[in-house]
């Protein structure tokens, strides 16, 4: 079922190795290819459309569920709806990588539309890696939509990375947070060539004492373009911090538009945004350690996106 292309892409997007432990669902070229339930995690295929419902029981403590997707058929548009129902008090790690291998001339696209319904005091770690490869001229497109509903006292740690090979991406994320919820988002992105990336994120801090931290780090090379628009809306006594850092190279274009919107006198919201080239002093320091300029540049980028 898993050919060499899928195996290689899987290694990149889910290096922790899906299928080795716990629940998993592997989707390959628009079709479910393999799945397994976990001790406290149940996966059901949707009947009305493409996708799965994932039920995470309250007894889940430190369990993992891996739902990798690989598309290698040129010209395919794969749209999938995955809904996560996470019970009160559970503790789970969700790994949701997506990779496209395109050797053809037509565009290959995957839209992962994910919704999370997180119960009271539950803790969710969500890891998402996006990757593209292949020798074809056809575009590799990924458009993820993530809708997160957090009940009181829950925590959501989101770690997304798109490091290589995706020609176009439009990411839309919405988070609704009730009282005492905690959100931590780290978004890492590298674009090169003619690639284009857009990330829109709306964080609604609706409950008292909710807190959100959004960290975005990106590197734009070649003549690629990036647009970031994270927005925090404070509806109650809350804290939010948005930080966007970008390294710009060659003739790239980075546009960073953090937005903060306070609708309560006790909402404390901060934003920081910085775009700049690689610092010469950093390059020189690494050169004094024996690295060439190119090696130093690679190390700076690797660590910046670490």
């Amino acid at each position, binding site marked *: 079922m898993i050919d060499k292309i899928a195996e290689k892409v899987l290694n990149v997007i889910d290096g922790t190795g899906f299928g080795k432990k716990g629940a998993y669902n592997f989707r390959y070229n628009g079709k479910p290819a393999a799945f397994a339930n976990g001790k406290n995690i149940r996966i059901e295929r949707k009947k009305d459309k493409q996708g799965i419902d994932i039920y995470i029981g309250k007894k889940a403590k430190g369990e993992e569920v891996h739902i990798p997707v690989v598309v290698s058929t040129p010209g395919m548009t794969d749209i999938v709806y995955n809904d996560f129902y996470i019970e009160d008090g559970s503790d789970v790690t969700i790994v949701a990588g997506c990779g496209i291998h395109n050797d053809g001339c037509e565009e290959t696209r995957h839209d992962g539309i994910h919704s999370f319904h997180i119960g009271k005091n539950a803790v969710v770690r969500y890891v998402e890696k996006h990757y593209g490869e292949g020798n074809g001229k056809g575009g590799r497109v990924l458009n993820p939509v993530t809708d997160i509903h957090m009940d009181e006292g829950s925590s959501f740690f989101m770690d997304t990375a798109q490091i290589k090979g995706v020609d176009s991406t439009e990411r839309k994320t919405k988070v609704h947070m009730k009282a005492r919820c905690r959100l931590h988002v780290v978004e890492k992105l590298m674009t090169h060539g003619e690639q284009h990336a857009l990330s829109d994120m709306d964080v609604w801090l609706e409950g008292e004492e909710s807190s959100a931290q959004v960290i975005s*780090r990106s590197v734009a090379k070649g003549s690629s373009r990036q647009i970031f628009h994270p927005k925090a809306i404070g509806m109650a006594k809350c804290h939010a911090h948005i930080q966007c*850092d970008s390294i710009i190279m060659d003739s790239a274009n980075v546009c960073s538009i953090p937005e903060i919107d306070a609708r309560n006198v006790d909402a404390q919201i901060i934003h920081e945004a910085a775009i700049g080239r690689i*610092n010469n*002093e*950093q390059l*020189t*320091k*690494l*050169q*004094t*350690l*024996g*690295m*060439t*300029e190119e*090696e130093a540049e690679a*190390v*700076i980028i690797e*660590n*910046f*996106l*670490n």
Partner: protein
Amino acid sequence: MLTVEHLSYEVIEEGRKQRILDDISFTVEDGEMLVVTGPNGGGKSTIAKVLMGINPAVEGKIFLDGQDITNLPVHERARAGIGFAFQQPPRFKGMTVQRLLDLAAGVELPERICCRLLSSVGLCAKEYIHREIDATLSGGEMKRIEIATVLAKKHKLCIFDEPEAGIDLWSFSMLVKQFGQIHKSKKESLLLISHQERIIRMADRIMVIRDGKVEKLGQKEEVLNNLALDSFQRQNCIEEGGVM
């Protein structure tokens, strides 16, 4: 052994050439500790940067163990055996202290070695090893990590540009001890730029740089006596000037 012959360095300011270093010649013998001192703006840090290849020499030659390194780029001088600690080291977002020490050593260091390096510059290793080298570190912490990067590897010549700047007294004592150990082992030559008397007194020889030129170069005792006399005479001049 480092041999520097007739080294000069110029910059262009407002369309005119300005000589920052003029005909500098000196040596640092194997295992020797040479302390470079002198007034601010005299060209001490520029000498260090020209030796490392960060600034290009316009005249003169630099030899390391007989190899002409005058035209080598920075990374090749590093590979040839020169270590360099910056006066104001840069920060790296996303890079941990441990990663920087690995890069400095050229190999992945075991955690205990990283801890030993950090302890030797007065940092509590466990608190720092996984920290990022970003704006959350103070200037003094940055300086100590910088010095640790040079200590992470054996060199033929280690250059430290004002290692004492921004370091508290307790850490300074540890640093002095560290320089003392390197000096005692005689395995690495040391070129230290410093204004600190304790460091100056550790030197085998002292070189005084003023207005881009070597004002004095000699054995520690000889130069120290001259420095004390100069300082006394200058103080008297100021006082006499004040009376007039």
